[in-house]
């Protein structure tokens, strides 16, 4: 049921995006919504992902006037794109918190796009004959694979992050940053290439103009990427620096590690490490205090001089001398 609901959403989005066709690919549109069946497959289960993909593509085709059953092979392909990423749960991936898990997720997304497109093409070759192979490779197959793979690669993690399926551990933060930087690089290349395509590049001026535009885009992306890295690196190194300072404090006998408080409130590996450090420092402090107290308690210091004086004051009284003489007699009586 949920699958059907999301399928409807996917279908409407499909019909909307069907007007944004990829350049030189007359049947393939830019489809960021492909992340939807993939995410549903991962968040719920593979069959739900399949239903979203299958029904969604059917509805989209229907609204766009292609006819509900004309491209049934692509319904199946979209279903597969929702089905395959959902399978990662059977590889023991429940939450994504490590680079390995993140890698498997991204691989499943790319793999699903590849398998699904290949499957659709195979069905077409066998039963439908809409395409001719290999001439439809640049206009059908490759654009379909690229838009699905890239959109899934970028957007599926975003959706999963929103649903807390991806944990913001240090590893994940790092791999995300690297991914974002990679995407920026790819994007800047794509922008320059697209600009070149849009112009017919007949004149030398046009080439130079494109060169400058591509340069400006690159510099902009370089600055944005660098600033993002600076922010991230600061967030990453500050806790490490604080912990290093904290261990120096402990080494010199200061056990108040309140400087780690901001780190301890973090929800990742560094936060855990910092909390353990604070707890350990407290334990060490208590143990040391109790040891020092024990040694203190065990010391029996007697001021001999003062004692002798006090004893003399007592024993040199007449009363005491008298008592001493009598004491023996007392006890024997």
């Amino acid at each position: 049921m949920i699958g059907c609901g999301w399928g409807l959403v996917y279908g409407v989005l499909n019909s909307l995006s069907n007007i944004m066709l990829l350049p030189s690919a007359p049947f393939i549109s830019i489809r960021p919504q492909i992340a939807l069946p993939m995410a549903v497959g991962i968040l719920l289960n593979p069959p739900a992902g399949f239903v979203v993909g299958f029904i969604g593509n059917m509805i989209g085709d229907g609204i766009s006037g292609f006819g509900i059953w004309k491209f049934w092979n692509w319904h199946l392909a979209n279903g597969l794109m929702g089905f395959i990423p959902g399978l990662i749960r059977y590889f023991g991936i429940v939450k994504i918190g490590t680079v390995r898990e993140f890698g498997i997720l991204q691989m499943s997304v790319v793999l699903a796009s590849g398998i699904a497109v290949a499957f659709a093409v195979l069905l077409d070759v066998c039963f439908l004959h809409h395409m001719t192979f290999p001439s439809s490779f640049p206009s059908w197959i490759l654009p379909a694979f690229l838009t699905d793979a890239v959109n899934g690669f970028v957007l599926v993690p975003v959706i999963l992050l929103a649903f807390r399926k991806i944990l913001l551990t240090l590893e994940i933060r790092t791999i995300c940053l690297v991914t974002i930087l990679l995407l920026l690089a790819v994007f800047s290349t794509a922008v320059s290439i697209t600009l070149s395509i849009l112009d017919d590049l007949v004149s030398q001026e046009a080439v130079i103009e494109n060169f400058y535009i591509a340069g400006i885009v690159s510099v902009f992306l370089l600055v944005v990427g660098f600033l993002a890295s600076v922010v991230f690196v600061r967030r990453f190194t500050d806790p490490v620096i604080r912990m290093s300072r904290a261990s120096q404090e402990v080494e010199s006998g200061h056990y108040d590690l309140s400087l780690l408080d901001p780190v301890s409130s973090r929800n990742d590996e560094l936060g855990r490490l910092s909390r353990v450090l604070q707890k350990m420092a407290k334990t060490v402090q208590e143990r040391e205090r109790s040891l020092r107290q024990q040694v203190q308690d065990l010391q029996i210091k007697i001021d001999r001089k003062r004692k002798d004086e006090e004893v003399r004051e007592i024993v040199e009284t007449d009363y005491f001398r008298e008592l001493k003489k009598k004491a023996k007699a007392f006890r024997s009586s």
Partner: protein
Amino acid sequence: MAKIIAIHSFRGGTGKSNTTANLACLLAREGYRVGMVDTDIQSPGIHVLFDLDTNDIPYALNDYLWGKCDIARAAYDVTKTLGADATGRLFLVPSSIRAGDIARVLHYGYDVTLLKEGYRQLIRQLPLDYLFIDTHPGINEETLMSIATTDVLLIILRPDQQDYQGTAVTVEVSRQLEVPEMYIVLNKVPVRVDREALAAKAVSAYDCPVVGVLPHDEDMLDLGSSGIFSLRYPDHIISREMRRIVQRLTP
């Protein structure tokens, strides 16, 4: 022959009365006839542990010291404290808590040699196997008299520097009075302290046997000054230490 056991401490609040009461009860439970004299006339306390209200009793130690009565008249049988199965007997000679009586002692004093005679009479008349003397803290004529009279001196101290220093004086003075047997009991020792190590330190500091190291315990505080701890909690470590002390005091 009867044995006189004096319990002394250099300062107040060491648990002297409590220890006296516990040791006396344990001895009486073993079948001995045991007496206790509260000679801390200035601040009496042991009677509370035995539910003895000195307002209701006709005579106290004070009356004997002022020649008003025989000392045996001021001795009260508190054997019922021990429970039904006790075979021995337990007597207590309390001090008066009447403000006037205390003031009179502070003002005029008393003839301390009467104490010694009183102990002798008690032992003979009740008669007794053991007589415990709960002394006034510190060293004065009365405590010196008790020390000179006693067969066994138990010095109680807490593990702190003032008690350590004061005990050194007491031990030295008692040696000069040739007390036949002298033992040290460490009381209210914090739980974290290694009790055996502390006992060893005390033995070498005073050259005197340490017969008990009693941990500081909240249960004991809860019981306060009412009731005998070692009878109520016989399995507690404090009670076991008390029984060990009693073993040292009996043949």
